[in-house]
């Protein structure tokens, strides 16, 4: 962030008169506000998109009445929920009950501080950014346990307890995988990890070695579990626990839960993008766009560059978000003991194995072999994608389905 702000200040006469710390503060506040708006808008749009995608997956249409193509549906729902009576159960623990949503929200929001949007647009590029992310995300579990406990509802309590067990366990494979990436990139700074990768797929971490490819799955599943997403949505398993830890919430507090859930969706996508998919790396694309637009001034060039990188980053994250959404509408829910099994018997050993083998690999295998392997892995990835679409076509043919490609109808 600092270089970008410096650049703006150097361009802007008025700001030069102000003390440096003051303009820094102002800019940081502005960016915080932007992030807040981003979170809110993203949560709303993600809620809408999820419902539309789910609709089409289920041979339905999804919300299409409020605003053009129903895009304001989440807003309408939000307003509706706001107008609901704010109920606190009589025997609930009032203080904790009120506090819990904010814990969840803060835990989620603090993560955005370290998540980059482009090479320069990041609130704080911490040296231990990835470590910070891990730490801050755990705040969410406190909020969930709090809300489960404070609701004085046995189902909520069960949800809260499940969530505690789940998030604490799944942090282990996630941390191990992150450790692997940190080891491979040689830095704990998020920007550093992205910088260690490149724009082309064979420069992404995921396609570097087979082990890094496998390592992606513990991370992805772990962050699904930490975000309480299907198939690991134990804490709010609606067919078992009614609605889990947020059963007793209504009104504004419920909206906060909703926000937290959907912005978490973005965090899942962004984290995986940062670690495995080359983050905002756009290669020659920004220069190309700059050339196209004929931009000369360094500030606007920087802005365009950042915008392009933002788009690249968003595109990758949103693709992952789409996969998360699609997974939710594909899979059944696992049972709570199986959840632990998957974590401790499958993900943790796999993550450990990857860590160790990758360490050896880094010492033993020469650079050029890794490059060749990376190319092969990329080819495999493309083949896998091709096979996916081949299967999709086969499914359509097998059931003689009538097609409609227009996503909005």
């Amino acid at each position, binding site marked *: 962030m600092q270089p970008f702000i410096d650049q703006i200040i150097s361009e802007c006469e008025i700001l030069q008169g102000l003390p440096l710390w003051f303009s820094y503060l102002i800019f940081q506040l502005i960016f915080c506000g932007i992030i807040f708006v981003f979170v809110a808008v993203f949560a709303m749009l993600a809620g809408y998109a999820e419902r539309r995608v789910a609709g089409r997956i289920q*041979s339905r249409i999804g919300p299409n009445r409020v605003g053009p193509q129903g895009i304001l549906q989440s807003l309408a729902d939000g307003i509706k929920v706001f107008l609901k009576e704010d109920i606190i159960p009589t025997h609930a623990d009032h203080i904790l009950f009120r506090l819990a949503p904010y814990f969840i929200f803060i835990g989620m929001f603090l993560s955005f501080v370290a998540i980059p949007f482009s090479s320069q647009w990041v609130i704080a590029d911490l040296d231990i950014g990835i470590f910070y992310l891990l730490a801050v995300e755990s705040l969410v579990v406190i909020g969930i346990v709090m809300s489960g406990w404070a609701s004085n509802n046995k189902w909520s309590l069960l949800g809260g307890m499940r969530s505690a067990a789940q998030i604490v366990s799944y942090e282990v494979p996630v941390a191990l995988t992150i450790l692997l990436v940190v080891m491979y990139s040689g830095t704990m700074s998020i920007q550093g990890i992205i910088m260690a990768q490149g724009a082309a797929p064979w420069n992404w971490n995921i396609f570097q070695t087979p082990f890094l490819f496998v390592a992606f799955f513990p991370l992805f599943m772990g962050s699904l579990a930490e975000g309480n997403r299907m198939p690991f949505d134990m804490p709010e398993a609606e067919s078992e626990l009614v609605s889990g830890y947020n059963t007793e919430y209504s009104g504004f507090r419920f909206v906060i839960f909703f926000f937290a859930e959907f912005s978490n969706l973005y965090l899942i996508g962004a984290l995986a993008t940062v670690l495995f998919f080359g983050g905002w790396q756009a290669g020659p694309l920004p220069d190309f766009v700059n050339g196209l637009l004929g931009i000369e001034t360094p500030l606007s060039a920087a802005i365009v560059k950042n915008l392009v990188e933002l788009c690249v980053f968003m595109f990758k994250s949103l693709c992952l978000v789409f996969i998360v959404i699609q*997974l939710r509408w594909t*899979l059944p829910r696992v049972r709570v003991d199986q959840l632990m099994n998957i974590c401790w018997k499958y993900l943790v050993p796999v993550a450990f194995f990857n860590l160790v083998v990758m360490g050896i690999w880094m010492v033993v295998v020469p650079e050029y072999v890794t490059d060749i392997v990376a190319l092969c892995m990329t080819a495999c990835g493309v083949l896998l994608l091709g096979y996916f679409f081949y*299967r*999709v076509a086969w*499914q359509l043919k097998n059931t003689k*389905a009538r*097609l*409609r490609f227009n*996503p909005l109808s």
Partner: protein
Amino acid sequence: MRERHPRSVNFEIPRYILFMTYFSNIKTAVSTVFEGMTITFSHLLREPMTIQYPDRTPLPVKDTLPPRYRGFLCVRPEICTACTLCQKTCPIDCIVIEHSKDEELKQRVMTRFDIDMAKCMFCGLCTEQCSTGAIYFTNEFEASTSNIKDLVFKFIKQGEKVIPYKIPRKKKPAAAAAETQAAAKEKKE
């Protein structure tokens, strides 16, 4: 504690097989999830089945219903014979027919024919009993009102008198033959 089925903890299974199941578990899990994803993805390309009732349907839903559809009941009092068979068959007594001898007209008249659609269970027993088809089902089905009394359909307005329909008597061939025979006999005598 959780009862485990003997098969899930079988100590005689050799180690290497357990090791194999470990990997086959991963394999089946990955492949079936992959398969599921292709199916759900393929549904993104299929036609949705939603009927956007009520306002965005190509035809009003009412007109797409099959002719046998059992919607609201309707009565044509002009051809009702006041036989009250429908009233008697209705299992929940939601048809009320009142008929009496009218002094002015010197005839039986119907003064009331109410069907309580809020009670009706659309079973169709009443329409089957009717010999003239005076009571029949329509394709109307939108029944929400703010007052449940609106659902009592009155087919004969208050104070109105309806003369029951008389089915023109067609003599049965056997009866007609017997009559002619009787007439012939009379003639002979």
